[in-house]
């Protein structure tokens, strides 16, 4: 077996803000093979974006990252600033969420796409950078003239395409897509998903896809990892996890999607009750027990570790 492109071992991220230590990610381990695709799912605040940003060390200074992150053979957490900058955007790049202010409002999008090429010297000069920018824009379905536009002149879908083109600028090996379809309407969502899928094939990319939308992940990724309260509570091949969830939390997530053609699923939605716990004050025992319909006395005692739940499948629940 070849070495995985991304390997995370017991990664924990703790924010040391004014309100004390807040554990956002707790002892997460995952491997992502070259050419593979992994979807990270979970509700807001479960730590999935924190985990994604820890890969390129983009967290604020008050976040302490422990464990080991190896990206393309490099131990990310022990890289010096120069080495870290060199690895950013070349070993791994991020498709940020277009709905946020991920684009600088006072710079043309063309300049912003070309910037990493010039920083990393992947093109010989500005002219070549411009040519490649136009090429990339064309690849994501935008006309060359869009290079001279400012972000506010673009629609949400166009901005998302620009962010995708930007992420491809230095031909990264790992593409981290952080909620790339959030806040887009369904048609545009589908277009963006198809585009990402095509690009993954063309460029032989490895994809780490983050979203709260389980159905999107099932479509886009071979493997799935579900996070709850800073930990992975279930992982395995997408269709198996979505089709036959082992962890009660995954069951709740999967049940939240209405079955098309079945009115009863729409009339009586069977999603999850309650709210996810605050990372600063986790419940005793299994952090899901206050919301879990199957909770027993034993669930209050200790937090369950991931255990085997089938071929290539794991779940952190004592009922498995």
């Amino acid at each position, binding site marked *: 077996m070849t070495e995985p492109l991304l390997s995370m071992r017991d990664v924990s991220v703790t924010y040391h803000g004014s309100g004390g230590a807040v554990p956002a990610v707790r002892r997460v381990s995952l491997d992502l093979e070259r050419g593979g695709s992994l979807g990270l799912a979970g509700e807001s605040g479960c730590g999935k974006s924190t985990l994604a940003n820890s890969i390129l060390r983009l967290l604020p200074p008050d976040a302490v990252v422990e464990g080991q992150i190896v990206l393309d053979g490099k131990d990310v957490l022990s890289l010096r600033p120069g080495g870290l900058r060199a690895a950013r955007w070349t070993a791994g790049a991020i498709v940020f969420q277009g709905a946020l202010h991920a684009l600088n409002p006072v710079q043309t999008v063309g300049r912003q796409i070309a910037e990493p090429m010039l920083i990393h010297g992947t093109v010989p000069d500005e002219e070549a950078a411009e040519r490649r920018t136009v090429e990339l824009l064309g690849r994501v379905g935008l006309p060359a003239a869009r290079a001279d536009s400012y972000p*506010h002149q673009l629609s949400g879908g166009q901005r998302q395409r620009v962010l995708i083109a930007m992420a491809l600028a230095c031909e990264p090996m790992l593409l981290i897509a952080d909620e790339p379809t959030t806040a887009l309407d369904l048609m545009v969502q589908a277009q963006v998903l198809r585009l990402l899928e095509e690009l993954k094939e063309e460029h032989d990319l490895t994809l780490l896809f983050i979203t709260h939308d389980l159905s999107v992940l099932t479509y886009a990724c071979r493997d799935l990892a579900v996070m709850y309260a800073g930990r992975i509570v279930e992982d395995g091949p997408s269709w198996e996890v979505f089709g036959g969830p082992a962890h009660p939390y995954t069951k709740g997530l999967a049940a939240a999607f209405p079955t098309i053609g079945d009115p009863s699923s729409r009339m009586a939605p069977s999603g999850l009750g309650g709210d996810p716990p605050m990372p600063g004050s986790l419940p005793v025992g299994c952090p899901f027990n206050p919301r879990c319909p199957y909770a027993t006395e034993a669930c209050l005692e200790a937090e369950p570790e991931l255990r085997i739940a089938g071929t290539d499948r794991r779940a952190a629940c004592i009922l498995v």
Partner: protein
Amino acid sequence: MAGSLLTLLFVLVFNFFLFRIVQKDPIGSLFRGRNVPQAVIDNLREAFGLDQPLLTQFFLYMRETFSLNFGVSYQSRQPVWDEIVAAIPATVALVGVSAILSAVIGTALGIVAAWRRNTWKDHGITSGTMLFYSMPDFWLGMILLVGLAVVVPLFPVGGIVDAGSTTTGLARLLEQTYHMALPAFTLTLAYLGEYTLVTRSSLLDVMGEDYLTVARAKGLRDKLVRNRHAVPNALLPVITLAAINFGFVLSGAIAVEAVFSWPGLGKATADAIRGPDLPMLQGLFLLFSAAVIFFNLVADLTYGFLDPRVEDI
């Protein structure tokens, strides 16, 4: 553009009636109760057109203003415009230099403070500039005057050249610069805090933006993230502040000019108020308003140039 002209017209009308309310009998106060024959006073009233009904005075004032005749100073008996023009260079030099210095230094300090927030650099810069900002500028001027011109006589105590100086050319320019140092230093210190605080808070706002995370993710150096992505966005409100302050370049230093006997528009204003010299004050106020209005227009235009989201004004 049309709005600016309308504002100016309003100032013109307002100025006239304001001073008529403030001072009913300017000629009487000119002599300050000294025993002057009534005939002399009547003559003067007539000469300045003050014997006419108020409305007639107003139309005369408007007509003359539009033909760029601002009247004759009560005190010096010279045309107001000549008096003002003579005082402009001194003020523009003093306040202009201070405005530029405080804008550049203040903004730079604000950037450092925000980028290194909650460090000793930030605390030092913020509290230091706040200290000077909270002092009255004339008081700061007096302290500096006593300290650096009287106790330790490094600088001249006032004026634009030494009394009876006969220097010319470059030597005179140097002499004037030397005299300007202390008042310019005072004004720069006094204005600094505003820029530092506005820049700091504006940059802190920007520093939470996602596009800075994106810039870091691309592999940019910290300095490049700051200069290329953070500062251009944070400077927008600072530009407005600078433009407004430049509008006050002509009028802003009344107290400091008085402290340092600097023969500029500020001192001319202080002297005219003491009169009161109505034509002089009307002329000065019109000029000050025109400058403020003009620089606000410049601010709007610059904003449109710097921020692509502002299409037209």
